[in-house]
């Protein structure tokens, strides 16, 4: 199966083309861009370029794997809209995959017996982050905490708790955080609560994100959507729209309208 992968939910735009057969993966070409606000212009040209490098015509694609966030609202819509549109033209299925999971796989491609506790974090303003907690051993992932928004400090202490639990049977896990935090977000000190062995900044994992989506797809990480089901794919936003929250609050206070 010839597959195109793409993700635009973070500051990294990542694409890849490869073949999957019986759970095995062969990456034919991959590319990434960290150009600020460049995703909307560059996604499709980069996808085209990766296809050409791989020697694949767009018409040869048999499936599209797309990162569905959570992450930047505007960003995450770019890849999802593009994937749905391409699938409509080509008549191929789409596999929606969590961007956070893909970040975890990109940061931790290890297939050995080592026990890894991985926490991907994407900044969500007001000292909060979209995050999740995963455990990996022998190349098999287990989700400990589903994708959601929490204060960064809370994520850090959750990671500490998870590390303590995992230590019981097999000794302490290797703890890895991958994040897109900048100095200006003022949350870096809060990461120090986490039992951190390695920190992988987004820039370091961006190039591996496209191939990571391919490996997760081959491992059966999500369910392929076919035919009319493709229309129903939506980004994982992680947060309600502020205007909707306010409207609900106003209703609660007995006002009909804002």
């Amino acid at each position, binding site marked *: 199966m010839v597959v195109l992968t793409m993700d635009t939910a973070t500051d990294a735009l990542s694409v890849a083309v490869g073949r999957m057969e019986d759970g095995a993966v062969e990456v034919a070409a991959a590319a990434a861009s960290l150009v600020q606000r460049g995703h*909307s*212009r*560059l*996604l*499709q*040209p980069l*996808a*085209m370029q990766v296809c050409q490098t791989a020697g694949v015509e*767009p*018409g040869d*694609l048999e499936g599209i794997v797309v990162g569905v966030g959570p992450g930047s*609202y*505007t960003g995450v*819509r*770019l*890849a*999802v*809209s*593009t*994937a*749905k*549109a*391409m*699938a*409509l*033209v*080509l008549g191929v299925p789409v596999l929606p995959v969590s961007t956070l999971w893909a970040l975890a796989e990109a940061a931790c491609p290890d297939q050995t017996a080592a026990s890894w506790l991985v926490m991907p974090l994407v900044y969500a303003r007001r000292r909060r982050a979209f995050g999740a907690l995963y455990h990996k051993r022998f190349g098999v992932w287990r989700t400990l905490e589903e994708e959601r928004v929490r204060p960064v400090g809370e994520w850090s202490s959750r990671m500490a708790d998870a590390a303590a639990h995992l230590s019981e049977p097999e000794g302490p896990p290797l703890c890895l955080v991958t994040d897109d935090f900048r100095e200006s977000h003022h949350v870096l000190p809060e990461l120090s609560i986490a039992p951190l062995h390695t920190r992988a900044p987004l820039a370091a994992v961006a190039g591996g994100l496209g191939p990571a989506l391919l490996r997760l797809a081959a491992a059966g990480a999500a369910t392929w959507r076919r035919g009319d089901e*493709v*229309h*129903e794919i*939506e*980004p994982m*936003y992680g947060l309600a*729209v*502020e*205007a*909707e929250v306010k*409207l609900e609050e106003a209703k609660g206070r007995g006002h009909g*309208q*804002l």
Partner: protein
Amino acid sequence: MNGLLLLGIETSCDETAAAIVRDGRVVLAESIASQMDVHARFGGVVPEVASRRHVAVVTRVVADTLSQAGLAFAELDGIAVTYGPGLLGALLVGVSAAKGMALASGLPLVGVHHIAGHVAAALLADEADAGARLPALALVVSGGHTEILRVDERFGFTRLGGTIDDAAGEAYDKVARLLGLAYPGGPKLDQLALTGNPEAYAFPRSLIDAPNFDFSFSGLKTAVANELNRRRQRGEAVDIADVAASFQQAVCDVLVEKTARAVAATGLHRVVVAGGVAANQGLRRALAERAEADGFTVVFPPRRLCTDNAAMIAAAGYFAMRRGLRHDLHLNAHATVSLADWQCGRVV
């Protein structure tokens, strides 16, 4: 001879729309998912809500349009998409989808200026007639725009003038809110004006004597607000139908006067009216009367094509492609872009 078939996609505000148009004139199929009800709860369009809805329905409206027309992608000749002006997040959904379709199908792509789309709506054939011909003057009146344009026979635009503050449609919505009419208030105000006395209040006709084709509507809105306040403070009753009718008369007087003067100045005796306010009954009547008196013709698009739709985008895309405009996969969306920058390919 099938002619050239273009798929149009429009997501610049709160309508997700797709259409297939032949040779820029004949609508073969259209599908539209309106978000009007979604935004009515908020009293206005919430950009993030709009963008989320667009992603949820964009491929479905395209699929519906293709199946209505009984066509496959391979049978189309190109894809046209609104790339600006509009809500950036909303525009990006349509542009991303259109670029994905162009990448997957190899079809030519053209980004379309939303206002050029509104003008092209008047060129589309209706059941009744074959649509307007070019060259013509265009009066564009919508919630975001009030402009007088000269459109040459090759669909090239020259801007003669436009609003220096609020758009006419914006003034309608603001005054409707002052009168307590629920969102979207413009059409309700138009309806209410039918029953009122247009001479009850003397609201200002800003710039009506200025020797140019510019408009200003913010003073008019302020005048209405002041009048309402004054009456309420004195405890006087206000007949809102009279206010609506007098406001509408002031807007129409200016629009009609400047349009008639543009006809005289350019010698173009054909005027097309475009944009959401082109559906306004008061404006239609006032312009038709003046056209009759001055001896020019005025063409209004069918009412359903006055509001945002994709048939007008496919039509504008066809005429733009014929002028040689084409975009590659680097096409971006722009919240603001001028007609001039669009048509010469300066902003992509």
